[in-house]
């Protein structure tokens, strides 16, 4: 007699493997460390302390491995041919002679890049320029050879025919609508922000004096001591490993996936020890080109920028042109301030939008200003691209608003320290975007600094250096 198979009742809740079941809470572990959560305005214990770095010993022994210190068997060395012309159509690129050189294993151009555009926000940067050159530091071809020396020599053999286009170099020109677009048909203005508070025109009408000033800052390169470097290895399973100094590896992974046209799951980015970043290693540069050279050759490929390339072909700090207009009472109290910022974005957007926003928000300075109109534009020019750098626009506007404050104080015959104490933020002041501010110690800091360097005010034998 055979037993009828039991009907298995379907449980209401599917049986879950153990690992998916909610686990009992882990027993509480108490640390013999008192966790100090600082109160608002309380000095944290870390400030002013000395710290020893975990990696300090290896640094001092010269044992830290930066990318250029890594070597993989059979590795090739790559160099990138730079356009050297600010704006042009590329009519042709002839790589035959370079490819024929002994020791050259592969050459690629922009046409070999599956999707030749990337960027942290706007996807306006080509990995290698193919049809158009947007700035002199653009790469137009990449060579992989058995030695760096051969790769460098091969660059000379690559013949590129350009049809020059008049470059747009002045950001104020670029701002005008009739100026030809760097990335035509798009307008050159690719970011804009306005902050409005109160009524500045009314404030100017009520002011005793109105001051105007224009301030400019220059382009600044990060100059990390370690130049840009990466190693790419495309393996036989179709997976790519990229050793990179990127500060934002997940973003870099997305950009590498986009440009190579393969899923992110096939890309592994290994973040290495970085020899200085300062914001200049926040997006990919040559990684996709190196990955493709590796795919083409079946060998790992390393690329290290020369110091010159670091200047021409990595991001820099935005130069700003800053117009300030400020209405004050005779005593120096600011009634209204109007600001226009023009950021020179260079050839590509990169982190311009972040920089634009931060510069605009901070442009009024740490002062209580009831009536404010701040407007910021970022424009394309045919110059080295600008991007993230320590402060994202904050240092540039600080130079402008503090210089402006000094000019006003001087014209009114007021001590530059006094005019700042009269206007500076207090605890609970509202920022230009109406954020309530805490832990505000601007005045205390100013007074302490003035005391420590012996500031006596302009009338009392002070040395005239601004606070």
């Amino acid at each position, binding site marked *: 007699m055979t037993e009828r198979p039991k009907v298995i009742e379907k449980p209401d809740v599917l049986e879950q493997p153990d690992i998916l079941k909610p686990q009992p809470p882990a027993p509480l572990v108490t640390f013999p460390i008192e966790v100090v959560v600082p109160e608002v305005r309380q000095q944290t214990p870390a400030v002013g302390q000395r710290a020893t770095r975990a990696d*300090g010993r290896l*640094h001092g022994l010269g044992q830290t491995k*930066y990318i250029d210190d890594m070597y993989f068997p059979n590795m090739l060395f790559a160099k990138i041919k730079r356009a050297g012309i600010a704006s042009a159509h590329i009519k042709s690129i002839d790589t035959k002679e370079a490819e024929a050189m002994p020791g050259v294993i592969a050459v690629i151009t922009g046409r070999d890049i599956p999707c030749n555009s990337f960027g942290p926000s706007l996807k306006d940067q080509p990995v290698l320029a193919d049809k158009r050159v947007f700035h002199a530091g653009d790469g137009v071809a990449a060579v992989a050879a058995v030695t760096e020396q051969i790769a460098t020599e091969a660059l000379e053999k690559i013949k590129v025919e350009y049809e020059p286009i008049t470059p747009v170099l002045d950001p104020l020109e670029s701002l005008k609508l009739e100026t030809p677009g760097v990335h035509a048909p798009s307008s050159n203005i690719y970011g804009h922000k306005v902050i409005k508070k109160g009524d500045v025109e009314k404030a100017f009408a009520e002011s005793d004096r109105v001051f105007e000033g224009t301030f400019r800052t220059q382009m600044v390169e990060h100059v990390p001591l370690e130049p840009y470097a990466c190693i790419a290895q495309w393996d036989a399973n179709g997976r790519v490993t990229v050793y990179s100094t990127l500060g934002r590896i997940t973003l870099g992974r997305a950009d590498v996936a986009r440009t190579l046209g393969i899923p992110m799951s096939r890309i592994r980015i290994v973040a290495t020890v970085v020899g200085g970043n300062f914001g200049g290693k926040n997006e990919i540069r040559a990684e996709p080109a190196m990955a493709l050279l590796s795919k083409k050759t079946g060998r790992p490929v390393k690329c290290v920028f020369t110091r010159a390339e670091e200047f021409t072909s990595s991001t820099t700090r935005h130069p700003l042109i800053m117009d300030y207009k400020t209405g004050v009472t005779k005593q120096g109290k600011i009634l209204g301030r109007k600001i226009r910022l023009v950021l020179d974005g260079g050839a590509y957007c990169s982190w311009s939008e972040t920089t634009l926003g931060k510069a605009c928000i901070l442009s009024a300075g740490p002062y209580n200003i009831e009536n404010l109109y701040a407007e910021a534009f970022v424009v394309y020019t045919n110059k080295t691209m600008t991007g993230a750098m320590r402060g994202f626009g904050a240092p540039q506007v600080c130079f402008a608003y503090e210089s402006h404050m000094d000019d006003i104080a001087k014209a009114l015959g007021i001590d530059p320290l006094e005019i700042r104490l009269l206007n500076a933020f207090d605890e609970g002041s509202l920022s230009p975007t109406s954020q309530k501010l805490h832990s505000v110690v601007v005045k205390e800091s100013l007074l302490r600094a003035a005391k420590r360097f012996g500031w006596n005010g302009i009338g009392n034998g002070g040395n005239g250096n601004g606070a």
Partner: protein
Amino acid sequence: MVNVTLKVNGETRSASVPPETTLLRLLRDQFNLTGAKLGCDVGDCGACTVIVDSKPVNSCLMLVGQVEGREVLTIEGLANADHLHPLQKLFEHFGSLQCGFCGPGVIISAKALLDENPDPSTEEIRDALGGNLCRCTGYTKMIEAIKGASCILRGEEVPAVKSA
């Protein structure tokens, strides 16, 4: 190709390399001594500093032809992990390096200074580091570390440094 034989960190080494090879490339690519770094390749940054016959040099500016038979000391030859040179000990202790890329060059420059001048003033230390660029630290803690190391090497106690 040229043949070159020299002493590196006390060991006799030779290689056959193209004549345009710099001492820095020779050390890094042929001898796998990657402690000295390539920061600029034109003599501006000092990341490649090594000692050649007791003088600090930018190894990126020296060609292999100039090093035949000479004695080279690199950061790897200064000490090992069990036994740090006082400079390395104090650079670690004071947190004198951040990214560390300039470190080997700076420490080698400092070593060359202390070999010549066992009790340098702050000015003299600054002078000795004149060819070494550091983008991270601002040099203050390096100078403290070098002063401290000079004390240790003279058999004196390292004076306490006050917090910022």
